[in-house]
């Protein structure tokens, strides 16, 4: 097994996912299968290969720099955005207590 039950529980914690004990076992089996499959990449010699981090880097013209001007634009969206919140107290989103007394 590439991945232990403890690994699965730790990853679920990192991802803020609640998992039942049955789910832990199920995901362990499935992730193990997938991680075993992706070991295929070890067959490649990748030492001198640059990782591809974006698609159009090469085909972008130099006339179009990656960074745009930092221009201020009006954005009057607080109302409609807060209207979608499960618990809003204008102008805030309300959440359970974070800091213990």
């Amino acid at each position, binding site marked *: 097994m590439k*991945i232990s039950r403890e*690994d*699965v529980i730790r*990853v*679920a914690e*990192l*991802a*803020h*996912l*609640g*998992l039942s004990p049955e*789910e832990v076992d199920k*995901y362990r089996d*499935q*992730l193990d*299968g*997938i*991680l075993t*499959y*992706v070991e*295929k*990449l*070890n*067959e*490649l010699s*990748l030492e001198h*290969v*640059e*990782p*591809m*981090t*974006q*698609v*159009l880097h090469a*085909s*972008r*013209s130099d006339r*179009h720099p*990656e960074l*745009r001007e930092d221009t201020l634009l009006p954005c009057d*969206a607080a109302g*409609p*955005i807060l*209207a*979608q*919140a*499960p*618990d809003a107290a204008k102008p805030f*989103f309300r*959440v*359970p*207590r*974070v800091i213990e007394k």
Partner: protein
Amino acid sequence: MNAAASWTVASVRAALSAKKISARELAAEFYERIDGRNPELNAFLTLSRERAYAQAGRVDNAVARGETLPALAGVPIAIKDVLSTTGIRTTCGSRILESYVPPYDATAVERLDRAGAVFLGKTNCDEFAMGGSNENSAYGPVRNPVALDHVPGGSSGGSAAAVAAGLAVASLGTDTGGSIRQPGAYCGVPGFMPTYGRVSRYGLVAFASSLDKIGPFAANVADVAAVTAVIAGHDPNDSTSADVPVPDYSAELGKPLDWLRIGVPEDYFGEGLDSEVRAKVEEGIALLQKLGCRRVPLKMPHTDYAIAAYYLIATAEASSNLARYDGVRYGLRVPGATLTEMYRNTRERGFGPEVKRRIMLGTYALSAGYYDAYYLRAQKARALIAQDFADAFQKVDAIVTPTSPTPAFRLGEKTSDPLQMYLADIYTVTGSLAGVPGISIPCGKTKAGLPIGMQIFGPHFSEGRVLQVADAFEKAGGSQL
């Protein structure tokens, strides 16, 4: 072909201009068909009658005033439910966004609106576009209109099925690893993935940002070209959107193909390819040769590594993108005693099994100690796959392959083994990783009557050429092979 499916962008325009039908009457005709067929297909999740009739009314006023009609005036269009639509619920096929109503339109959607399109509604899809069968939707699977006990493909299954069933003239889908091309192949309609950056992703709910693309389905290639021309182009709201001029795609159609070299990579015709699919795609290539194309054998040696690279990169990006669903700002909230407990409860209840699995895999691949072994390695493999395409396009002008190794499978057939489902993406994920444009075009049927798709790739920003080849193939009877 049924009556509604026979509507095209051109015939809608002609009928409106000649005042044979109004845009409102046309919308009503499509809603009638949807009301009849959708209970069985489950292609639409939300119908947007109010907005559709308002849009149609604007078109009818323009006709009455004798104005020049915009490119898609009155054309009834369906939109995949991962694209933001002002005032229309956008669920992403997920419980976590069950009642989410976006306050803005995605750029692609806004451009359709400005071009006079009529939005019929939002189409079903795999949750957050993660899947290849539409069985991962929280709102139930879509059925394939050609064979009801089969999947329509995914993740844009609803958008493909809606066009195939004549419930929309065109639709928008999204393609991260094959999610337009594969359902296009399974439902027997053209589905087009443009170059990465060709269409703005602003307002597309993100799955894997370096791979996500928006593109159309339509009943024919000319309509695919017409919709692509409207949605393509630079957008300052998407920093990865390309500042490259958009040519007149429709003007490319009908030009001769006799200069074209088509590459046929042997790596796409190996083990696992269904024999009927192979035979039809071979016939399709022969038809292209008859049209004047020169066939060039190719090797794309890193094809076999594409699934591994894709599923590491896509899940890593997904785990990061989906961190935003925490019950604070929008969507579902499941209470908890602490903030962390609230996050956890919300995500446990809100996400389905495939989304959780991908978040888990992506989180693991990015976590301390594993980043170099998985994510970085996958990004390097991605560079080699992109290089395969760059090398190929030194020798050929387009690449032709099967879209999927098999035709549509039965509902439930592959749900128990996620890896088997992933492996079926082998012919589509390569082009996704390279960021090149690709279309799936109908190429006959199996003996059992299931549609088969042929895929055509071109170099970055060669949308016009890809559409030209597909259009010539279609007009030469390619879909009836």
